């Protein structure tokens, strides 16, 4: 058994920040993540709004945060194969598939979120073969081609504009009759002659052979469908919190986000949550860092109270 003061599940900005604060306060901390450190931050090409850095890649910012946590003594386990998590008992535990068990009286859930997928036939088959979730990564594969962007928020509209650098035509498919973006993003999109839009519609099937060739689009109000030949589809329809493992254990809202009190404690004593997995309006690296800070300070107080 590996005994710690706090187990932090998730090594994104919230988890790493909590790790920095608690280990600096001489608490024994382990940060465990199913993926690599950084969470969604590592999937960000350029971060230009994190104070102190005019411009830094999400990868470098992640590595800096991890290094800082480790310098203060936190143990960081990445790409962990997690077999079981117990949050209910006084001693919370995480069991890995290699048999290692980590135990602590306090716990911070900082599991973050992930990009939402459309969830229709062909999506997994054609991911990387015409379907993408990253314009900066894959945009140049679609130079001179016709593509669809799915979504109606700021990210979808901004990425649609950015993709016109490569694609000759971009069609935005959006499920509602109004955009969910800021006026500035809408205006920039509408002024771009290479962009048009299909409202109140959704993709219900992806088709192709070696790569994506066409999509089936449904007009939602009427239910009518038609086939549209297309070279590529970029999907930007928001995020889902990584909280499936806590259903029935932690209090979640209707979107699966963890409900916390003003101290970031969940419905379970000694179990705190921070970052993109909790109920909140704005999801930024800076807000995750703030959550991690506040949660860790309250965890420190909790640990003092039980000693």
């Amino acid at each position, binding site marked *: 058994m590996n005994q710690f003061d706090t187990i932090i599940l998730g090594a994104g900005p919230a988890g790493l920040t909590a790790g920095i604060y608690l280990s600096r306060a001489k608490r024994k901390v382990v940060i465990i993540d199913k993926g*690599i450190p950084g969470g969604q931050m590592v999937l960000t090409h350029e971060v230009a709004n994190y104070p102190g850095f005019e411009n830094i890649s999400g990868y470098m910012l992640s590595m800096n945060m991890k290094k800082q946590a480790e310098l203060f003594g936190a143990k960081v386990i*990445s*790409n962990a*194969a997690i077999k079981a998590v117990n949050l209910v008992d006084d001693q919370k535990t995480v069991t890995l598939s290699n048999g290692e068990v980590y135990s602590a009286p306090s716990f911070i859930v900082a599991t973050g979120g992930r990009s939402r997928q459309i969830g229709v036939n062909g999506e997994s088959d054609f991911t*990387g073969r015409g379907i993408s*979730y990253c314009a900066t990564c*894959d945009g140049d594969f679609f130079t001179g081609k016709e593509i669809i962007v799915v979504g109606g928020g700021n990210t979808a509209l901004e990425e649609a504009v950015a993709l016109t650098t490569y694609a000759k035509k971009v069609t935005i498919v959006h499920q509602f009759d109004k955009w969910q973006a800021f006026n500035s993003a809408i205006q920039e999109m509408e002024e771009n002659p290479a962009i048009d839009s299909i409202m109140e519609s959704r993709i219900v099937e992806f088709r192709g052979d070696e790569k994506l060739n066409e999509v089936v689009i449904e007009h939602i109000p009427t239910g009518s469908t038609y086939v549209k030949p297309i070279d*590529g589809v970029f999907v930007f329809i928001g995020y889902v919190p990584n909280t499936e493992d806590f259903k029935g254990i932690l209090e979640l809202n209707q979107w699966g986000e963890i409900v916390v009190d003003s101290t970031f404690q969940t419905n379970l004593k000694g179990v705190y949550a921070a970052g993109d997995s909790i109920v909140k309006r704005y999801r930024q690296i800076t807000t995750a860092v703030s959550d991690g800070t506040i949660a860790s300070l309250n965890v420190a107080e909790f640990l003092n109270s039980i000693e």
Partner: protein
Amino acid sequence: MTLYTNLNHVETAEQLGKIIQENENVMVCCGRMGPMCVPVYGIMEDLEKSGKYDHVKFYDMLFDSPEAGIIRNLPECRGFMGLPFTVYYKNGKVVKATSSIQNLDQITDILDDKFEN
């Protein structure tokens, strides 16, 4: 120019040819320092460190290098439109290739299936 990872880098097509001839099991991730590629490099680094896959050699290669044509133009990568291109070689032959981001389970499934120890 190379990628700033802790993996061994393949710089030339000739070097890759030598590596796959001299090693039974080789995994090469060909990409950039971008959001879809970095998680794959991170998984490879951890797998290399773990010691569980000592029978596999892990490498990365810069996608934009002219030398990376040896991977970009593989028939197994035809139709790929997402970075990174990850290629698995056994005894010098391509046994699997994937496009775009892959998670730990997807990668270890391939390693366990194609490079049985």
